[in-house]
């Protein structure tokens, strides 16, 4: 088999490991079904294999390490959706895919099928180090300093069934980016890593203690420049401190962010340094040879741009304004002038954000094969990115996407709504989030309207756990329960990235229809009163929430 572009090619030992893991889980399922394991004992074991018990059935969450899939893997996911689920899957903000209608008895067979394509569900849940997420433009973006995926793979391997860190106080999420723009929301992770090259090899800026959930916190810088050799030692040390001192008496106070807040970043840093001082660093050294060996298992795309790519693209854009609009919103500069990064929107107006049918998965796999070196990236905004597309082929690509009903020109715009599954599927929810996402998606579905509104992120969560990142949306929506009825709080002014901030609650919660109407008025107010070139977020930053609050509650 040819090596995959963009992700690590499994060796035989990686495949053996998956088989061993599946055999273990099969045995655990047997013990559960025989009654040898209680549900309380089984739960953390199934969670560490990505299996939740949700509203309607078991749910399986499959890992997509650092967000990269190849066509063969996407076809396998389509097969799982078709054979074991109801013909679709849901891509999440954590670069995973969830299947909502799984039977426990089928789970080992599904894991076997996934393993055929080198996929697994390990550590997609549970109080362990979760799937490592990365930058969706990795290895392709013009502004990138270094491709973070080789190190993401090293972290994936290091964290896989780590003997010391599999029963942590709470889940632990690590993200890594190599872009100066922080496209992974590094400051909203338990540990966020920003990689950059230097004369002496890669350096890592480390943030710790960020997170959303019921206590949103922007992560703080732990170290400015950790050398590559000490990357694993530094992570070990940080997790050792967390495992020993993180709270275990209260589920809601157990994340590392609470520990860092309680003792303060300075003492926390001292504790990590004290740990490092006790360690024999040579033992933990990440050697250049090891990095090179992992890198050798990543194939690089062989780019062959044609000379007149720009002219061909310009001609297509001129001939077809719908295509031109899609290029405007859904492509991003590639480091090679003849190529483009294309984002496939999984937010077709009126559909469920992140849901993809098995047919669409197969179709996307074909498209990735034809146009993008068989490589697909799942984004933390629930879309799919094709990293390397020849500019002169964008038009054919777009036509293919149109046939799959996946050509919405709305990336970064009002229709690009992030939403968690909410009460329709999630046992923890207070309110539904998907119907609201659909209503808003339809309300702002018109491409021209979205273009006029410009950059806008709407994020919806069905409860305070914040899986839809409502704190980080320019407009955030949080479902709450008021005496048994569903209500929605609106937040304004959140953002991820380099200027991460947490949205402020606008006022009392509204019913679903009132919330949709209030958001429409907020946006109308922005359109009517913005300064030249001013984005929605800039206007909120300039004026504060007061004028928006006034219009939001105008008629309520």
């Amino acid at each position, binding site marked *: 088999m040819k090596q995959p572009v963009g992700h690590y090619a499994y060796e035989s*030992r*990686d495949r*053996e*490991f998956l088989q*061993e*893991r599946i*055999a*273990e889980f099969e*045995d*655990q399922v047997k*013990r559960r079904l025989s009654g040898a394991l209680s549900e309380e*004992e089984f739960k*953390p*074991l199934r969670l560490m294999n990505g299996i939740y018990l949700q509203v309607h059935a078991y749910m399986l969450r499959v890992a997509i390490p650092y967000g990269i899939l190849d066509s063969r893997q996407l076809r396998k996911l389509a097969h799982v959706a078709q054979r074991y689920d109801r013909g679709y899957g849901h891509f999440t903000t954590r670069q995973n895919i969830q299947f909502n209608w799984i039977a426990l008895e089928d789970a080992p067979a599904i894991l076997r099928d996934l393993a055929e394509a080198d996929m697994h569900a390990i550590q997609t849940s549970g*109080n362990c180090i979760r799937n490592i997420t990365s930058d969706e433009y990795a290895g392709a973006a013009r502004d990138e300093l270094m491709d973070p995926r080789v190190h993401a793979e090293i972290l994936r*391997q*290091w964290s*896989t*069934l*780590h*003997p*010391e*860190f*599999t*029963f*942590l106080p709470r889940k632990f999420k690590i993200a890594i980016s190599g872009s100066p723009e922080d496209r992974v929301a590094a400051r909203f992770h338990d540990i966020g890593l920003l990689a950059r090259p230097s004369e002496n090899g890669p350096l890592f800026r480390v943030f710790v203690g960020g997170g959303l959930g019921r206590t949103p916190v922007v992560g703080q810088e732990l170290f400015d420049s950790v050398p590559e050799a000490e990357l694993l030692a530094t992570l070990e040390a940080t997790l*050792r401190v967390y*495992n*020993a001192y993180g709270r*275990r008496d209260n589920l809601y106070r157990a994340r590392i962010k609470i520990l860092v807040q309680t003792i303060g970043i300075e003492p926390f840093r001292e504790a990590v340094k004290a740990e490092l001082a*006790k*360690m*024999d660093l040579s*033992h933990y050294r990440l050697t250049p040879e090891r990095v090179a060996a992992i890198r050798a298992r990543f194939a690089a795309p062989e780019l062959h741009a044609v000379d007149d790519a720009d002219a061909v693209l310009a001609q297509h854009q001129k001939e077809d304004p719908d295509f031109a609009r899609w290029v405007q919103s859904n492509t991003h500069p590639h480091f090679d002038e003849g190529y483009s990064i294309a984002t496939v929107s999984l937010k077709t107006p009126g559909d469920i954000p992140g849901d993809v049918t098995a047919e669409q998965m197969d179709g996307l796999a074909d498209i990735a094969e034809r146009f993008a070196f068989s490589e697909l990236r799942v984004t933390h905004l629930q879309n799919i990115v094709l990293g390397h597309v020849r500019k002169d082929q964008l038009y054919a690509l777009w036509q293919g996407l149109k046939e799959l009903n996946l050509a919405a020109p709305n990336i970064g715009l009002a229709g690009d709504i992030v939403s968690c599954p909410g009460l329709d599927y999630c046992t923890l929810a207070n309110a539904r989030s998907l119907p609201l996402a659909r209503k808003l998606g339809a309300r702002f579905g018109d491409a021209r309207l979205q273009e006029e509104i410009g950059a806008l992120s709407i994020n919806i969560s069905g409860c305070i756990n914040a899986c839809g990142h409502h704190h980080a949306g320019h407009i955030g929506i949080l479902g709450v329960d008021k005496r048994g009825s569903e209500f929605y709080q609106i937040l304004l002014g959140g953002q991820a990235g380099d200027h991460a901030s947490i949205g402020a609650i606008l006022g009392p919660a509204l019913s679903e229809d009132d919330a949709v109407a209030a958001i429409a008025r907020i946006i109308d107010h922005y359109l009517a009163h913005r300064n030249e070139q001013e984005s929605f977020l800039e206007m909120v930053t300039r004026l504060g929430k007061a004028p928006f609050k006034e219009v939001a509650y105008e008629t309520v």
Partner: protein
Amino acid sequence: MKLFNLSQQHIIPAEEADPVSLAELKEHPEAYAVALEPDESVEALRPFLAQITLVVLHFPIFRDGRAFTQARSLREYEDYKEEIRVTGHVLPDQAAFLRRCGVDTVVLSDDDDQTEWEAQLKRFTITYQQSIAS
């Protein structure tokens, strides 16, 4: 009560061990076995380690993984070579993790099934980290 031996090292028989607490250790310089609570630091044992041949760590519930860090710290930072034992609520599914963090023995109740422990210990031939256990 019976012991499951993870490491195949020489171990102290269950009925012989009579561990004292960390607080008691200071008054009983002759003690050779100590039981550490999950919130107690292994560094506190340092002055006594020369005479100690058994450290017992405790799992209040199997999800509470502090003993993994304690065991590994004893081996790595304190260079402790004698027996480490765990008590409390542990699952056979944790056997390899315990072993790889340097634990030698697990206290089981008399009706616990050892075959599950043996199977789990052998389950993985491939690991992605180095282990402190030799």
